[in-house]
Protein backbone atom coordinates (compact mmCIF):
# COMPACT_ATOMS: atom_id res chain seq x y z
CA UNK A 1 0.00 0.00 0.00
CA UNK A 2 1.15 3.52 -0.69
CA UNK A 3 1.54 6.00 2.13
CA UNK A 4 -1.64 7.64 0.98
CA UNK A 5 -3.53 4.36 0.96
CA UNK A 6 -2.27 3.68 4.46
CA UNK A 7 -3.55 7.07 5.51
CA UNK A 8 -6.95 6.48 3.94
CA UNK A 9 -7.33 3.07 5.51
CA UNK A 10 -6.23 4.41 8.84
CA UNK A 11 -8.76 7.23 8.60
CA UNK A 12 -11.59 4.82 7.87
CA UNK A 13 -10.60 2.59 10.75
CA UNK A 14 -10.31 5.54 13.10
CA UNK A 15 -13.70 6.81 12.01
CA UNK A 16 -15.25 3.38 12.50
CA UNK A 17 -13.65 3.17 15.91
CA UNK A 18 -15.12 6.46 17.09
CA UNK A 19 -18.55 5.24 16.05
CA UNK A 20 -18.36 2.29 18.40
CA UNK A 21 -17.18 4.06 21.51
CA UNK A 22 -19.10 6.90 23.15
CA UNK A 23 -20.06 8.79 20.08
CA UNK A 24 -19.49 12.54 19.98
CA UNK A 25 -20.66 14.00 16.68
CA UNK A 26 -18.48 17.10 16.87
CA UNK A 27 -15.37 15.15 17.81
CA UNK A 28 -16.07 12.70 15.01
CA UNK A 29 -16.53 15.37 12.38
CA UNK A 30 -13.56 17.38 13.59
CA UNK A 31 -11.39 14.34 13.14
CA UNK A 32 -12.75 13.87 9.66
CA UNK A 33 -12.06 17.51 8.77
CA UNK A 34 -8.47 17.29 9.91
CA UNK A 35 -7.86 14.08 8.00
CA UNK A 36 -9.30 15.62 4.86
CA UNK A 37 -6.76 18.41 4.99
CA UNK A 38 -3.97 15.82 5.16
CA UNK A 39 -5.38 13.56 2.49
CA UNK A 40 -6.39 16.06 -0.14
CA UNK A 41 -3.95 18.87 0.41
CA UNK A 42 -6.93 21.07 1.09
CA UNK A 43 -6.14 24.26 2.88
CA UNK A 44 -9.09 23.70 5.15
CA UNK A 45 -12.10 21.42 5.49
CA UNK A 46 -15.45 21.83 7.13
CA UNK A 47 -18.57 19.82 7.74
CA UNK A 48 -22.03 21.24 7.60
CA UNK A 49 -25.20 19.47 8.72
CA UNK A 50 -28.70 20.51 7.73
CA UNK A 51 -31.42 21.26 10.23
CA UNK A 52 -35.06 20.26 9.85
CA UNK A 53 -35.80 23.17 7.54
CA UNK A 54 -32.86 22.35 5.28
CA UNK A 55 -30.62 25.16 6.46
CA UNK A 56 -26.96 24.24 6.77
CA UNK A 57 -25.02 24.77 9.98
CA UNK A 58 -21.32 24.50 10.51
CA UNK A 59 -20.68 21.53 12.75
CA UNK A 60 -16.92 20.99 12.52
CA UNK A 61 -13.87 22.43 10.80
CA UNK A 62 -10.17 21.73 10.47
CA UNK A 63 -9.26 24.93 12.24
CA UNK A 64 -10.97 27.51 14.38
CA UNK A 65 -9.50 30.43 12.53
CA UNK A 66 -12.13 33.13 12.52
CA UNK A 67 -12.02 33.86 8.80
CA UNK A 68 -12.58 30.21 7.96
CA UNK A 69 -15.45 29.84 10.36
CA UNK A 70 -17.16 32.93 9.07
CA UNK A 71 -16.70 31.76 5.52
CA UNK A 72 -18.12 28.35 6.23
CA UNK A 73 -21.03 29.82 8.17
CA UNK A 74 -21.81 32.07 5.24
CA UNK A 75 -23.03 28.95 3.49
CA UNK A 76 -26.34 28.56 5.27
CA UNK A 77 -28.13 28.78 1.97
CA UNK A 78 -25.62 29.72 -0.74
CA UNK A 79 -22.39 28.04 -1.67
CA UNK A 80 -20.93 24.65 -2.56
CA UNK A 81 -22.34 22.97 0.58
CA UNK A 82 -25.99 23.95 0.10
CA UNK A 83 -25.66 22.98 -3.58
CA UNK A 84 -24.22 19.56 -2.72
CA UNK A 85 -26.93 19.08 -0.11
CA UNK A 86 -29.72 19.99 -2.50
CA UNK A 87 -28.49 18.04 -5.51
CA UNK A 88 -26.97 15.12 -3.55
CA UNK A 89 -24.06 15.34 -6.00
CA UNK A 90 -20.45 16.48 -5.61
CA UNK A 91 -20.03 20.18 -6.34
CA UNK A 92 -16.58 21.04 -7.70
CA UNK A 93 -15.37 24.58 -8.27
CA UNK A 94 -11.84 24.88 -9.61
CA UNK A 95 -11.69 28.66 -9.70
CA UNK A 96 -13.59 30.75 -7.21
CA UNK A 97 -12.67 34.01 -8.91
CA UNK A 98 -14.96 32.97 -11.79
CA UNK A 99 -17.80 31.83 -9.54
CA UNK A 100 -19.38 35.15 -8.60
CA UNK A 101 -22.47 34.42 -10.71
CA UNK A 102 -22.91 31.08 -9.07
CA UNK A 103 -22.36 32.26 -5.50
CA UNK A 104 -22.59 36.05 -5.40
CA UNK A 105 -21.97 36.30 -1.66
CA UNK A 106 -19.82 33.29 -0.94
CA UNK A 107 -17.36 33.39 -3.88
CA UNK A 108 -15.98 36.91 -3.36
CA UNK A 109 -15.69 36.33 0.40
CA UNK A 110 -13.84 33.07 -0.16
CA UNK A 111 -11.42 34.72 -2.56
CA UNK A 112 -10.88 37.57 -0.11
CA UNK A 113 -10.07 34.97 2.54
CA UNK A 114 -7.37 33.54 0.29
CA UNK A 115 -9.13 30.52 -1.14
CA UNK A 116 -9.10 29.77 -4.85
CA UNK A 117 -11.05 26.54 -5.11
CA UNK A 118 -13.90 24.99 -3.17
CA UNK A 119 -15.47 21.54 -3.38
CA UNK A 120 -18.33 19.95 -1.50
CA UNK A 121 -19.33 16.30 -1.21
CA UNK A 122 -22.85 15.43 -0.09
CA UNK A 123 -23.20 13.40 3.09
CA UNK A 124 -25.73 10.86 2.01
CA UNK A 125 -27.07 7.38 2.61
CA UNK A 126 -29.48 6.01 0.02
CA UNK A 127 -32.22 8.63 -0.22
CA UNK A 128 -31.20 10.69 2.74
CA UNK A 129 -28.81 13.66 2.56
CA UNK A 130 -27.87 15.11 5.92
CA UNK A 131 -25.18 17.67 5.07
CA UNK A 132 -21.96 18.21 3.16
CA UNK A 133 -18.20 17.93 3.45
CA UNK A 134 -16.45 21.09 2.29
CA UNK A 135 -12.86 21.20 1.03
CA UNK A 136 -11.31 24.65 0.54
CA UNK A 137 -7.95 25.15 -1.14
CA UNK A 138 -5.61 28.10 -1.54
CA UNK A 139 -4.68 26.91 -5.07
CA UNK A 140 -6.98 26.93 -8.05
CA UNK A 141 -7.44 23.68 -9.94
CA UNK A 142 -9.54 20.55 -10.00
CA UNK A 143 -9.87 17.91 -7.34
CA UNK A 144 -8.52 14.74 -9.00
CA UNK A 145 -11.20 12.05 -9.63
CA UNK A 146 -9.50 9.66 -7.20
CA UNK A 147 -9.67 12.29 -4.50
CA UNK A 148 -13.32 12.94 -5.27
CA UNK A 149 -14.01 9.24 -4.84
CA UNK A 150 -12.13 8.98 -1.57
CA UNK A 151 -13.65 12.17 -0.18
CA UNK A 152 -17.12 10.89 -1.09
CA UNK A 153 -16.37 7.59 0.63
CA UNK A 154 -15.33 9.39 3.80
CA UNK A 155 -18.45 11.55 3.67
CA UNK A 156 -20.57 8.39 3.26
CA UNK A 157 -18.91 6.69 6.22
CA UNK A 158 -19.50 9.76 8.32
CA UNK A 159 -23.15 9.78 7.29
CA UNK A 160 -23.68 6.19 8.37
CA UNK A 161 -22.15 6.93 11.74
CA UNK A 162 -24.32 9.95 12.35
CA UNK A 163 -27.56 8.30 11.20
CA UNK A 164 -26.93 5.22 13.33
CA UNK A 165 -26.24 7.39 16.32
CA UNK A 166 -29.41 9.37 15.74
CA UNK A 167 -31.47 6.19 15.43
CA UNK A 168 -30.04 4.79 18.63
CA UNK A 169 -30.76 8.02 20.46
CA UNK A 170 -34.34 8.11 19.21
CA UNK A 171 -34.89 4.50 20.09
CA UNK A 172 -33.48 4.97 23.57
CA UNK A 173 -35.68 7.98 24.04
CA UNK A 174 -38.83 6.14 22.98
CA UNK A 175 -38.11 3.30 25.40
CA UNK A 176 -37.58 5.73 28.24
CA UNK A 177 -40.78 7.51 27.34
CA UNK A 178 -42.71 4.25 27.26
CA UNK A 179 -41.52 3.18 30.69
CA UNK A 180 -42.15 6.62 32.09
CA UNK A 181 -45.60 6.92 30.51
CA UNK A 182 -46.63 3.44 31.68
CA UNK A 183 -45.60 4.05 35.27
CA UNK A 184 -47.10 7.54 35.29
CA UNK A 185 -50.43 6.24 34.13
CA UNK A 186 -50.55 3.79 36.96
CA UNK A 187 -49.34 6.27 39.53
CA UNK A 188 -52.09 8.69 38.57
CA UNK A 189 -54.77 6.04 39.06
CA UNK A 190 -53.30 5.09 42.42
CA UNK A 191 -53.21 8.74 43.46
CA UNK A 192 -56.87 9.14 42.54
CA UNK A 193 -57.64 6.28 44.90
CA UNK A 194 -55.63 7.78 47.74
CA UNK A 195 -57.26 11.18 47.35
CA UNK A 196 -60.73 9.67 46.95
CA UNK A 197 -60.31 7.85 50.22
CA UNK A 198 -58.74 10.69 52.16
CA UNK A 199 -61.22 13.34 51.05
CA UNK A 200 -64.26 11.10 50.55
CA UNK A 201 -64.55 11.95 46.87
CA UNK A 202 -65.36 9.95 43.78
CA UNK A 203 -62.68 9.32 41.17
CA UNK A 204 -63.59 12.24 38.93
CA UNK A 205 -63.51 14.66 41.82
CA UNK A 206 -60.24 13.20 43.03
CA UNK A 207 -58.72 13.63 39.57
CA UNK A 208 -59.91 17.22 39.43
CA UNK A 209 -58.30 17.94 42.79
CA UNK A 210 -55.00 16.52 41.57
CA UNK A 211 -55.13 18.55 38.38
CA UNK A 212 -56.01 21.78 40.11
CA UNK A 213 -53.25 21.40 42.64
CA UNK A 214 -50.75 20.70 39.85
CA UNK A 215 -51.88 23.74 37.87
CA UNK A 216 -51.86 25.97 40.90
CA UNK A 217 -48.37 24.89 41.92
CA UNK A 218 -47.08 24.86 38.38
CA UNK A 219 -45.96 21.26 38.52
CA UNK A 220 -46.69 18.24 36.41
CA UNK A 221 -49.62 16.04 37.28
CA UNK A 222 -47.36 13.02 37.55
CA UNK A 223 -45.27 14.78 40.16
CA UNK A 224 -48.33 15.53 42.27
CA UNK A 225 -49.55 11.96 41.81
CA UNK A 226 -46.22 10.47 42.87
CA UNK A 227 -46.09 12.70 45.93
CA UNK A 228 -49.58 11.66 46.94
CA UNK A 229 -48.85 7.97 46.48
CA UNK A 230 -45.60 8.23 48.38
CA UNK A 231 -47.31 10.28 51.08
CA UNK A 232 -44.93 13.21 50.80
CA UNK A 233 -48.02 15.22 49.97
CA UNK A 234 -51.21 14.94 51.97
CA UNK A 235 -54.54 14.91 50.18
CA UNK A 236 -55.78 17.42 52.75
CA UNK A 237 -53.27 19.89 51.30
CA UNK A 238 -54.73 19.61 47.82
CA UNK A 239 -57.22 22.26 48.92
Amino acid at each position, binding site marked *: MTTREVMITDTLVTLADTMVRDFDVVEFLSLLSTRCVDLFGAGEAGLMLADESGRMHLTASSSHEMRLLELLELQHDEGPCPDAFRTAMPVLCDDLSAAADRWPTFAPEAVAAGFQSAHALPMRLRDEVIGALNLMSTHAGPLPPDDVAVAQALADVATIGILQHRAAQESKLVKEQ*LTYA*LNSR*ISIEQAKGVVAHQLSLNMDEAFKALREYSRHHNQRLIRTANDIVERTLDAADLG
Partner: protein
Amino acid sequence: MDPQRLADLVQQLEHDRSNGTQVGARLCETCVEILDVTGAGIMLMSEGEHRGTFGVSNDVISVVEDLQFTLGEGPCIDAFTSDQPVCEPDLRNPAAVRWPAFSGPAVEAGVRAVFGFPLESGTTRLGALDLYLDEPGELRPDQMSDAVALAKVISDTVLALQADASPGALAPELDASLHNRAVVHQASGMLSSRLNIGVRDALSRIRAYAYSDSRPINDVARDIVLRRLTLD
Protein backbone atom coordinates in the same frame (compact mmCIF):
# COMPACT_ATOMS: atom_id res chain seq x y z
CA MET B 1 -40.64 -18.14 8.79
CA ASP B 2 -40.48 -16.97 5.24
CA PRO B 3 -38.83 -13.52 5.17
CA GLN B 4 -41.46 -12.39 2.69
CA ARG B 5 -44.15 -13.39 5.17
CA LEU B 6 -42.47 -11.33 7.82
CA ALA B 7 -42.14 -8.36 5.47
CA ASP B 8 -45.82 -8.64 4.55
CA LEU B 9 -46.74 -8.72 8.21
CA VAL B 10 -44.75 -5.60 8.97
CA GLN B 11 -46.36 -3.83 6.05
CA GLN B 12 -49.83 -4.93 7.16
CA LEU B 13 -49.14 -3.56 10.61
CA GLU B 14 -48.12 -0.21 9.15
CA HIS B 15 -51.37 -0.15 7.27
CA ASP B 16 -53.36 -1.03 10.38
CA ARG B 17 -51.67 1.64 12.41
CA SER B 18 -52.62 4.29 9.91
CA ASN B 19 -56.25 3.24 9.68
CA GLY B 20 -56.81 2.52 13.35
CA THR B 21 -57.30 -1.24 13.18
CA GLN B 22 -56.65 -3.00 16.46
CA VAL B 23 -52.99 -3.68 16.09
CA GLY B 24 -52.75 -5.83 19.19
CA ALA B 25 -55.52 -8.15 18.09
CA ARG B 26 -54.05 -8.49 14.63
CA LEU B 27 -50.64 -9.36 16.06
CA CYS B 28 -52.22 -12.09 18.17
CA GLU B 29 -54.16 -13.52 15.23
CA THR B 30 -50.99 -13.54 13.18
CA CYS B 31 -49.17 -15.42 15.93
CA VAL B 32 -51.92 -18.04 16.00
CA GLU B 33 -51.73 -18.46 12.23
CA ILE B 34 -47.99 -18.54 11.82
CA LEU B 35 -47.24 -20.57 14.93
CA ASP B 36 -50.21 -22.90 14.62
CA VAL B 37 -51.20 -22.51 18.28
CA THR B 38 -54.68 -22.33 19.79
CA GLY B 39 -54.37 -18.81 21.15
CA ALA B 40 -52.02 -15.89 21.72
CA GLY B 41 -52.01 -12.86 24.00
CA ILE B 42 -49.74 -9.88 24.51
CA MET B 43 -49.03 -8.55 27.95
CA LEU B 44 -47.49 -5.18 28.75
CA MET B 45 -45.42 -5.17 31.89
CA SER B 46 -43.32 -2.84 33.99
CA GLU B 47 -41.62 -3.20 37.34
CA GLY B 48 -42.25 -6.92 37.27
CA GLU B 49 -46.00 -6.42 37.11
CA HIS B 50 -48.57 -7.23 34.46
CA ARG B 51 -49.94 -3.83 33.52
CA GLY B 52 -52.36 -4.46 30.72
CA THR B 53 -53.31 -6.71 27.84
CA PHE B 54 -52.42 -5.31 24.45
CA GLY B 55 -54.23 -7.97 22.46
CA VAL B 56 -55.84 -11.40 22.62
CA SER B 57 -56.87 -13.86 19.94
CA ASN B 58 -59.71 -15.54 21.83
CA ASP B 59 -61.59 -15.69 25.15
CA VAL B 60 -59.46 -18.44 26.62
CA ILE B 61 -56.31 -16.36 26.34
CA SER B 62 -58.20 -13.52 28.03
CA VAL B 63 -58.66 -15.85 30.97
CA VAL B 64 -54.94 -16.65 30.91
CA GLU B 65 -54.14 -12.94 30.95
CA ASP B 66 -56.62 -12.26 33.71
CA LEU B 67 -55.32 -15.09 35.86
CA GLN B 68 -51.79 -13.77 35.54
CA PHE B 69 -52.89 -10.27 36.36
CA THR B 70 -54.83 -11.43 39.38
CA LEU B 71 -52.33 -13.93 40.69
CA GLY B 72 -49.10 -12.28 39.70
CA GLU B 73 -47.81 -15.66 38.55
CA GLY B 74 -47.73 -17.50 35.24
CA PRO B 75 -45.69 -18.10 32.10
CA CYS B 76 -45.61 -14.46 31.01
CA ILE B 77 -44.51 -13.27 34.40
CA ASP B 78 -41.71 -15.82 34.39
CA ALA B 79 -40.70 -15.04 30.82
CA PHE B 80 -40.54 -11.36 31.67
CA THR B 81 -38.57 -11.68 34.87
CA SER B 82 -36.18 -14.36 33.61
CA ASP B 83 -35.82 -12.80 30.17
CA GLN B 84 -36.10 -16.30 28.66
CA PRO B 85 -38.78 -18.26 26.84
CA VAL B 86 -40.82 -20.34 29.25
CA CYS B 87 -42.45 -23.61 28.19
CA GLU B 88 -44.94 -25.86 29.95
CA PRO B 89 -46.02 -28.64 27.60
CA ASP B 90 -48.61 -30.10 29.99
CA LEU B 91 -50.17 -27.88 32.64
CA ARG B 92 -52.29 -30.72 33.97
CA ASN B 93 -49.34 -33.08 34.52
CA PRO B 94 -46.30 -30.88 34.74
CA ALA B 95 -42.87 -32.30 35.49
CA ALA B 96 -42.71 -29.74 38.31
CA VAL B 97 -45.48 -27.48 39.55
CA ARG B 98 -44.49 -23.93 38.71
CA TRP B 99 -47.69 -22.02 39.14
CA PRO B 100 -49.79 -23.58 41.90
CA ALA B 101 -52.56 -21.02 41.74
CA PHE B 102 -52.53 -20.46 37.99
CA SER B 103 -52.48 -24.04 36.70
CA GLY B 104 -55.85 -25.36 37.91
CA PRO B 105 -58.01 -22.51 36.63
CA ALA B 106 -56.01 -22.32 33.39
CA VAL B 107 -56.54 -26.01 32.69
CA GLU B 108 -60.23 -25.63 33.48
CA ALA B 109 -60.45 -22.82 30.96
CA GLY B 110 -59.03 -25.12 28.27
CA VAL B 111 -55.30 -24.50 28.41
CA ARG B 112 -53.13 -27.63 28.28
CA ALA B 113 -49.76 -26.35 27.07
CA VAL B 114 -48.59 -22.81 27.66
CA PHE B 115 -45.54 -20.79 26.53
CA GLY B 116 -44.23 -17.33 27.34
CA PHE B 117 -41.79 -15.24 25.33
CA PRO B 118 -40.26 -12.01 26.62
CA LEU B 119 -40.90 -8.83 24.67
CA GLU B 120 -37.91 -6.58 24.77
CA SER B 121 -35.75 -4.14 22.85
CA GLY B 122 -32.13 -3.92 23.82
CA THR B 123 -32.10 -3.87 27.58
CA THR B 124 -35.63 -2.55 27.91
CA ARG B 125 -38.28 -5.12 28.80
CA LEU B 126 -41.74 -4.38 27.54
CA GLY B 127 -43.80 -7.42 28.51
CA ALA B 128 -44.43 -10.90 27.22
CA LEU B 129 -46.19 -12.87 24.51
CA ASP B 130 -48.17 -15.86 25.70
CA LEU B 131 -49.24 -18.78 23.57
CA TYR B 132 -51.29 -21.84 24.45
CA LEU B 133 -52.37 -25.16 23.02
CA ASP B 134 -55.60 -26.94 23.91
CA GLU B 135 -53.74 -30.25 23.95
CA PRO B 136 -50.48 -31.14 25.62
CA GLY B 137 -47.49 -30.61 23.37
CA GLU B 138 -44.18 -28.89 22.82
CA LEU B 139 -43.26 -26.22 20.34
CA ARG B 140 -40.98 -27.49 17.58
CA PRO B 141 -37.65 -25.72 17.09
CA ASP B 142 -38.98 -23.88 14.05
CA GLN B 143 -42.03 -22.73 16.03
CA MET B 144 -39.76 -21.55 18.82
CA SER B 145 -37.63 -19.47 16.47
CA ASP B 146 -40.71 -18.10 14.72
CA ALA B 147 -42.13 -17.14 18.11
CA VAL B 148 -38.93 -15.27 18.94
CA ALA B 149 -39.09 -13.47 15.58
CA LEU B 150 -42.73 -12.53 16.17
CA ALA B 151 -41.89 -11.35 19.68
CA LYS B 152 -39.41 -8.96 18.10
CA VAL B 153 -42.01 -7.68 15.63
CA ILE B 154 -44.42 -7.11 18.53
CA SER B 155 -41.79 -5.24 20.55
CA ASP B 156 -40.90 -3.07 17.59
CA THR B 157 -44.58 -2.36 16.98
CA VAL B 158 -45.15 -1.31 20.57
CA LEU B 159 -42.19 1.05 20.38
CA ALA B 160 -43.28 2.38 17.00
CA LEU B 161 -46.72 3.16 18.45
CA GLN B 162 -45.14 4.92 21.39
CA ALA B 163 -42.79 6.89 19.10
CA ASP B 164 -45.84 8.67 17.68
CA ALA B 165 -47.30 9.52 21.08
CA SER B 166 -47.26 13.00 22.60
CA PRO B 167 -44.45 13.41 25.11
CA GLY B 168 -45.22 12.03 28.55
CA ALA B 169 -48.32 10.22 27.40
CA LEU B 170 -48.90 6.64 26.36
CA ALA B 171 -49.80 5.98 22.74
CA PRO B 172 -53.62 5.63 22.56
CA GLU B 173 -53.50 1.94 21.66
CA LEU B 174 -51.26 1.21 24.63
CA ASP B 175 -53.30 3.39 26.92
CA ALA B 176 -56.38 1.41 25.96
CA SER B 177 -54.62 -1.75 27.17
CA LEU B 178 -54.19 -0.25 30.59
CA HIS B 179 -57.53 1.39 30.75
CA ASN B 180 -59.61 -1.48 31.99
CA ARG B 181 -57.20 -2.10 34.87
CA ALA B 182 -57.37 1.51 36.06
CA VAL B 183 -60.00 0.53 38.62
CA VAL B 184 -57.57 -1.93 40.20
CA HIS B 185 -54.99 0.79 40.71
CA GLN B 186 -57.60 3.15 42.05
CA ALA B 187 -58.66 0.49 44.51
CA SER B 188 -55.02 -0.06 45.48
CA GLY B 189 -54.74 3.66 46.19
CA MET B 190 -57.84 3.66 48.34
CA LEU B 191 -56.81 0.59 50.28
CA SER B 192 -53.27 1.84 50.78
CA SER B 193 -54.63 5.04 52.25
CA ARG B 194 -57.17 3.31 54.46
CA LEU B 195 -54.76 0.78 55.90
CA ASN B 196 -51.73 3.04 55.75
CA ILE B 197 -49.72 0.58 53.67
CA GLY B 198 -47.86 0.92 50.40
CA VAL B 199 -49.71 0.57 47.10
CA ARG B 200 -47.84 -2.63 46.25
CA ASP B 201 -49.01 -4.26 49.46
CA ALA B 202 -52.50 -2.98 48.83
CA LEU B 203 -52.49 -4.58 45.37
CA SER B 204 -51.30 -7.87 46.89
CA ARG B 205 -54.19 -7.85 49.32
CA ILE B 206 -56.71 -7.15 46.59
CA ARG B 207 -55.24 -9.99 44.58
CA ALA B 208 -55.38 -12.37 47.51
CA TYR B 209 -58.99 -11.48 48.15
CA ALA B 210 -59.98 -11.93 44.49
CA TYR B 211 -58.28 -15.31 44.43
CA SER B 212 -59.73 -16.65 47.65
CA ASP B 213 -63.19 -15.38 46.73
CA SER B 214 -62.85 -16.68 43.16
CA ARG B 215 -63.95 -13.36 41.76
CA PRO B 216 -62.49 -11.37 38.87
CA ILE B 217 -60.09 -8.83 40.26
CA ASN B 218 -61.75 -6.00 38.37
CA ASP B 219 -65.06 -6.75 40.10
CA VAL B 220 -63.44 -6.74 43.52
CA ALA B 221 -61.68 -3.49 42.68
CA ARG B 222 -64.91 -1.92 41.52
CA ASP B 223 -66.60 -2.86 44.76
CA ILE B 224 -63.78 -1.28 46.73
CA VAL B 225 -63.94 1.91 44.68
CA LEU B 226 -67.72 2.09 45.08
CA ARG B 227 -67.23 1.54 48.77
CA ARG B 228 -69.33 -1.63 48.70
CA LEU B 229 -66.46 -3.67 49.99
CA THR B 230 -64.05 -3.04 52.79
CA LEU B 231 -60.92 -5.15 52.97
CA ASP B 232 -58.75 -5.50 56.03
